[in-house]
């Protein structure tokens, strides 16, 4: 059984440490693909994003998606870490790191996990505006939902 680590946290994500965990002390990992999603400031108009989540279900849903990926490709480890609470521009919102012997499985696994995480993991983003006015909830993109059909 490959290691699957899923974590939600309010503080910064240490991409280096999370990624090292996948290969430390083992010689069978030949590829690690990492995806990091960052908070944008939208041309200076945003001071950050507030990430609301459904405690319990969010972890369970990401774990379910990771296990599905592990069943489809020969993966050697998965780390998925997602922020909640207030995230500042430039900070990492989500990290997905996938290890395998060869790159194809790691690329595919990471992309699969991100595609499903975007529209199936219960998180919602609210904009915090730089000018102090009430921010909007970010709308879901139809393209995110459409991305699922290719899997």
């Amino acid at each position, binding site marked *: 059984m490959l290691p699957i680590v899923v974590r939600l946290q309010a503080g910064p994500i240490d991409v280096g440490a999370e990624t090292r965990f996948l290969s430390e002390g083992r010689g069978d990992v030949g590829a690690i693909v990492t995806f990091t999603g960052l908070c944008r400031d939208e041309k200076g108009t945003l001071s950050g994003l507030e990430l609301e989540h459904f405690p319990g279900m969010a972890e369970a849903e990401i774990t379910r998606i990771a296990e599905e990926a592990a069943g489809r490709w020969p993966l050697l480890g998965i780390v998925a870490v*997602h922020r909640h609470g207030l995230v500042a521009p430039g900070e990492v*919102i989500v990290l997905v790191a996938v290890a395998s012997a060869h790159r194809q499985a790691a690329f595919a696994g990471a992309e699969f996990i991100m595609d499903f*995480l*975007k*529209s199936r993991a219960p*998180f*919602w983003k*609210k904009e915090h505006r730089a000018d102090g006015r009430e921010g909007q*909830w*970010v709308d879901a993109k139809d393209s995110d939902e459409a991305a699922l059909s290719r899997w």
Partner: protein
Amino acid sequence: MKIVYFAWLRERVGVPEEVIALPDGVRTVGDAITHLSGLGENYAYAFERPAIIRAALDRKHVSLETPLGEARELALFPPMTGG
């Protein structure tokens, strides 16, 4: 039944969660949304576009046609925007 709301649904309804006695005729998730829509202006506003609402029963995604069955908790929320 325990109902929990997230994001702008929570803001529009005005509470994060509540316990609501659903009448006998309410069989599915969609029926529950229709019932909630009639409870006041805030609910009508929250559920003005019922087709876009996403739901989870006992923390598992379900469609609006899914029967409530023996579930203890119904979560209602907008399309997700994580990642």
